[in-house]
């Protein structure tokens, strides 16, 4: 066996994650053990297949590194670099204060990782603070590629049942089956806003309610804002809301900050800013500069995530293959001798 695992650090929909050590090198890693369904009716979980497929191809400082994959007792194990905390834990930790340079630094790292995915024509499709992991050195890394897929083949329809609700873009909520990197940019915009507000920005309580929540914040798009909106499969008479100026909610944010945020949350998907263009936005050139990762709040143990997940995010995850809800059962610490 390549790894000796010790402590369970997280539980996802299709895997348990343990802190572990590589036997050969002694390197601390995260061991993601794919759950075998009780019936194991269909073999290896399709989310695991996706994650392995894409992480094998992606190598970037802002994408979680897949050191190895191996099978043990018919079960597939992913050996990932170990990342002690995530952005959700840091946002929720009220003991930490964020400066504008901190937010800029996190967003920049996230966009760099995302640009790397997009230029290889890969969509992440499940961006949320909980899936942006943070290393001991402060580096932010995109993780959890269980919903990722290739895009760009116009002949192939894509599922609109992706992305956790609060981060789901309007075209997905309207049932679009042909979409692109815009869905990830939208999610990233929501994360950007959440970093500024310290609470989820567009927290709808149902799938239908999500669209209302979005329109209430950003105004209902008219035909000019979104040519062809009425052609989307789930299009219906939209509730009409006026646009609230961003300034009223984001009181402390500078104009460049809001300009970038608005460009990430543009309704019409093709007009939404790309990851590359976002990285070139004035926001990143203005003062203050992005905080060096090692100096970010929550780095080196401060504000790490609790050992077991206490609260599961309210928004249900929209993975059609993963409808079982994981509630936070306290995990009995078991002795492990391997």
């Amino acid at each position: 066996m390549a790894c000796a695992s010790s402590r369970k650090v997280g539980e996802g929909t299709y895997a348990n994650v343990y802190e572990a050590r590589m036997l050969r090198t002694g390197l601390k890693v995260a061991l993601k053990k794919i759950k075998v369904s009780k019936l194991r009716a269909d073999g290896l979980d399709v989310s695991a297949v996706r994650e392995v497929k894409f992480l094998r191809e992606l190598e970037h400082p802002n994408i979680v590194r897949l050191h190895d994959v191996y099978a043990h007792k018919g079960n597939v194990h992913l050996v990932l670099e170990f990342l002690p905390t995530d952005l959700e834990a840091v946002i929720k930790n009220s003991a930490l204060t964020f400066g504008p340079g901190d937010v800029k630094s996190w967003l920049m790292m996230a966009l760099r990782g995302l640009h790397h995915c997009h230029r290889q024509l890969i969509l992440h499709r499940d961006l949320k603070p909980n899936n942006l992991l943070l290393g001991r050195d402060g580096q932010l890394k995109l993780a959890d590629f269980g919903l990722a897929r290739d895009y760009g083949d116009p002949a192939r329809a894509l599922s609109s049942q992706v992305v956790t609700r609060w981060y789901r873009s309007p075209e997905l909520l309207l049932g679009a089956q042909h979409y692109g990197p815009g869905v990830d940019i939208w999610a990233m915009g929501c994360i950007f806003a959440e970093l500024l507000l310290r609470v989820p920005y567009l927290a709808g309580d149902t799938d239908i309610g999500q669209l209302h929540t979005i329109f209430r914040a950003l105004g209902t798009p008219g035909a000019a804002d979104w040519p062809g909106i009425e052609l989307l499969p789930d299009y219906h008479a939209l509730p009409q809301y006026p646009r609230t100026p961003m300034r009223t909610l984001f009181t402390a944010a500078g104009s460049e900050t809001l300009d970038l945020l608005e460009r990430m949350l543009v309704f019409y998907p093709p007009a939404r800013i790309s990851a590359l263009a976002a990285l070139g936005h004035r926001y990143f050139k203005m003062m203050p500069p992005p905080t060096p990762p090692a100096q970010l709040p929550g780095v080196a143990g401060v504000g790490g995530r609790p050992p077991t997940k206490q609260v599961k995010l309210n928004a249900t995850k929209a993975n059609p293959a993963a409808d079982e809800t994981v509630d936070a059962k306290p995990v009995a610490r078991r002795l492990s001798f391997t």
Partner: protein
Amino acid sequence: MAAGAADEAAPPVGISIGKLSQRAQRREVIENLAPPTASAQEAAAAAATAALAQAAGTADTKGGLAGASAATKPAELQKHRQLSEQSTQLRHWRFTAEQIAAIREQANAVAVARIKHAVAREQALHAAAGTTSPLFPAPLGDSDYITAEEQTVLCRYFEIMIGQFRHILKFDVTLQATAVAFFRRFYLFHSVMEYDPKTVVLNCTYLALKVEDKYMALKDFCRNIKNAPDPEVLLDMETKVIQGLQYELAVHHPYWPLHGFFLDMQAHLQTTISIPATLHAASKKLANLYVESKSLLQGLIFSDAIFQYSPAQLALGCFVTTGNDHGFAQEMARYTEDRFLHVASLFPHGGLVAMVERIGQLAKAQTAALKEDAGVRARAAPLARKLAKCRNPALLPDTLLFKQLQAEDAERQQAKRSDKAAKEQAYHDALDDVVAG
């Protein structure tokens, strides 16, 4: 943008990613066009060693499948390959014809050696029990084993079968190409004498359905396929197949780059032809050529070309060849010169023209071969009979050796468990001492 086949497939307006994906396709074309750098002997040796290690079942799953990436390349090449360099397909699954042959021979030799040993054990077990092995009444002679060459003939039959699955399960050519690539990759390093192609072909197809997001329940999959084995059989094999594929599941095909070339060439025509009527005719012709070259590609998917060339090279080869054969040679030449002359250093061994020629010939031969389906079956049948007599008894559930190995394994597990229990007990004892103390 001129009308053509591309527009038919375009998504509804308003959510169009058309522009973006076109740009992406064109970019993919340019960036992935670099041919393999043949660091022949060196990489062949590395690959053969890796084959040996893998076939021998050692733990080193990643192996040193060094492919073509070892050689030093000029800076320009580096730049152009930056992106594609990362793909596991380019790093681990590109080989020259010589390398392919060497790997196959190695894998075969290793399997034969292992089977010889296993057959001897099986016969010894029978002798000890006072019986004779029904499967192996006598030792196998050297000519009783499936050779590397015979394996490719036999495998061909199963690859063609994937095409039939495509019609039954209604998946697209890309998914088919992924399934075929999995199957070819797997049997490059494994022997049919040890892994039953009847099962593996289904595993590869089912895995491709998962990988290409056309997931279906395994029982539905099996129900749709005639003579499919029990789902349990497929489940037992799945992990082995994924492992045999080095957990590298992203496969790139020429279809997409072909579409990219088509779009790029349409754009190019617009810059070179100014008379509207002429442009219209040329665009229409181009659209036909695109469809035509797609079917020319089809044969390559089932050949070693997928290991020897990048998807973009195969696409360009087929596209230009089709053009040359249909009175579009001049336009093709102008296009390739305008677009690729500045990266001429990317094309050693006689340049782009020679490469196109090689691919074109290969494609024609392969596409013709695809048509003689009956021949494939006739050639495979005697080999299937031969195969039934030389399979590794260690992997056949009915043999004494299989049972023996299972018993040995269970024993080892038991020993491990009791060792663990003892450790746990010792821990609890120590804990009790602490608590008591």
